[in-house]
């Protein structure tokens, strides 16, 4: 479940200590942009010890430096043996980038006697090339279980200007979510940059949820609960969905494939959607059936 993934810098011990207390489904510990060039080595070492010491109650995702830097390999050499759940490669342009990272992780896993392939990849697509290759990238490694859109670098690469309306990244969002859904993996949206504008955050999050994204990145702890709420079925939606599923099961046993509940008709895909709603709600809220 990746309703929210929250970023924090790897170089700050206080942030590492409490990374998982804000309710984000995943924490993204950043060795890339949030770690200054002069602190790359110390951040890596600090992160290694944090992963050995803390037992996070969230998916642990490590954002590594891009292939165009001298640091990505050292990031993997230091971090892969600590068995994070997921590695987030950055500035991914082509499937070959993913293949190189996959091979490197596989080598390190083998050298350390680890189960090969257990560490997942959540590539950050933040270049025009990356967006155009989204589908091929999604298929480049079986480790990949999601695609994540990075709008700030993308805007830089495209010479675009980020606006509140976000029209400039509408194509990128559509392209990424379509690729992800084609392959059957997660689609995670870029963070909302106005950290205390919760109204704006909720508005944008509803839009991307409606587009098909299943989660959004957060760059401030206060954003997490808003994002989680939007990507979670409400109790009311759950009750309606349960009623539809129940009615459909009854109808199916009577040889019918369509059911009308509350004046609304459900069949085929609509039934799949309500079943997903029931399953999601019960998983999020620990409902035992």
């Amino acid at each position, binding site marked *: 479940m990746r309703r929210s993934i929250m970023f924090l810098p790897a170089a700050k011990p206080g942030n590492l*200590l*409490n990374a998982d*207390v*804000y309710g984000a489904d995943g924490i993204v510990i950043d060795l890339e942009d949030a770690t200054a060039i002069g602190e790359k080595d110390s951040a890596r070492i600090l992160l290694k010890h944090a992963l050995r*010491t*803390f037992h996070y109650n969230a998916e642990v995702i490590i954002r590594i430096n891009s292939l165009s830097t001298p640091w990505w390999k050292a990031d993997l050499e230091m971090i892969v043996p600590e068995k994070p759940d997921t590695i987030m490669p950055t500035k991914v342009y082509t499937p070959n980038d993913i293949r190189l990272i996959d091979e490197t992780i596989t080598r390190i896993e083998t050298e350390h006697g680890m189960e090969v392939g257990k560490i997942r990849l959540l590539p950050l697509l933040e270049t025009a090339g990356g967006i155009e290759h989204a589908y091929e990238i999604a298929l480049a490694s079986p480790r990949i279980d999601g695609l994540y859109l990075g709008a700030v670098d993308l805007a830089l690469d495209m010479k675009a200007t980020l606006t509140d309306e976000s029209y400039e990244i509408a194509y990128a969002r559509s392209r990424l979510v379509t690729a992800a859904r084609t392959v059957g993996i997660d689609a995670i949206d870029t963070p909302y940059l106005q950290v*205390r504008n919760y109204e704006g955050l909720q508005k944008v999050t509803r839009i991307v949820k409606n587009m098909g994204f299943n989660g959004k990145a957060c760059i*401030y*702890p*206060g954003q997490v609960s808003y994002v989680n709420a939007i990507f979670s079925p409400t109790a009311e939606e759950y009750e309606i969905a349960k009623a539809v599923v129940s009615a459909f099961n009854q109808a199916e046993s009577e040889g019918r494939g369509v059911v009308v509940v509350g004046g609304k008709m459900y069949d085929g895909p609509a039934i799949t959607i309500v079943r997903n709603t029931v399953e999601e709600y019960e998983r999020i*809220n*620990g409902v035992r059936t």
Partner: protein
Amino acid sequence: MKGKLVASVEEAIRLCGLKDGMTVSFHHHLRDGDGVLPMVMNKISEMGFHDITVSASGIHGSHGCLVDLIKNGVVTGIDTDYISKVVGLSISHGSMDRPVIFRTHGNRPHAIAVGESPIDIAFIAASAADCQGNMNGVSGPSAFGSMGYAFADAAYAKKVVVITDNLVEYPLTPISIDERYADYVVAVDSIGDVNGIRSGITAVTQNPMSLEIAKKAVSVFENSGLFEEGFIYQTGGGSISLATTKFLQAAMDRKGIRGSAILGGTNGLLVDLLEKGYFRKIMDIQCLDLDAVESIKRNQEHQEISAACYADMLSKSCVAKHLTCVMLGATEIDLDFNVNVHTDSNGIIRGGSGGHTDIAHGAKLTIAMAPLLRQRRSAVLEHVTTKSTLGDSIDVFVTQRGIAVNPKRPDLRSRLVDAGLPVKEIGELYETARALAGKPDPLPFTDKVVGKVYGYDGQLSDVIRQVDESKAAV
């Protein structure tokens, strides 16, 4: 205009018949801006008196003069509810032969009334007074709001001197403490800097950790079975405690309920709740910023109360006994839920119960809150350094990593578990913190007792010992 007016503080001291060995008292409503305690005590020193006991409802940053007055023997005793770090450091290093007496805000007026803590001369700062000694804290350029702590001093001291920088025509209105109690009135240039009353917190914190803890604490209240129409609420003055107001509003909106009253020290955040209609009344012992001062002056729903009315647990009744829920900070808490708010991680005095112990005892639901780790020190210890508020008054302890419920409240524990809150044993929180930060070395103390801590009932809760400077980190 003459009335009880005398020319100077010195003349008032002479007329009151101060002698070596006597006790003089002060309130701390002007907090870090108080000019009256230093003015009077320096005059007492100049006049050659020694062996004086200072009875003050609180000793704050503006009272640093006491360090030198202790050194040269002018002050040999302190009876108070709170001591901030400058004077606290001196006392923790053993500067006084007699231990400081720490009381609670509610028990201090009781001890004064029954003669356990007698006062010879009360020097009462008033932001407005007339020549007969009618006084208040809401008028004049140095208005500081409620005079709650001064009522007992005025009523029971053998002599009462009113000190004001705003002498008005007789009769003053409104009156907080009336002329029956006053012996002398002194007009001075300034009673202090009113900006010093600020507790330092004027807006809900943006600190994500504090907000997370505050949110969890409000969830505890919301699911406690006590979150009902007409509840009475108090928060401590710390950033986490005050942050609960943000989440409390949302919870009240969700349930569509309103509270009867807010109790306590108040600031603009709490005044805002009153003005938005979330609560019907504020019962105010002290104002912690100028918004609160303005409110108590103009809003008749914002009521000044005495410290005894606030929280004298040995009286027939007091507002603290009617509290539904109180949210409090904790410097340390131990496996028995005892809370320390007197001494810091080095064993140095830098605080005191204030009303902590009273309201923790009085409330139906007492929630203590702290980050599990501050830097590398755990908030949960095997034993607190100082038992300020005893564990039987604390129902729940909330951290960012879980909620511990006092075993004496199994009913509450069940409710919180059923609500899906992250309930843990306090031992689990202790182990979590210990695994991350290790077990701290015992603090180095000598055998000398430098402070005695009395509870809401006037019973001795603990003693504070002198820090062994030869082994201490500070």
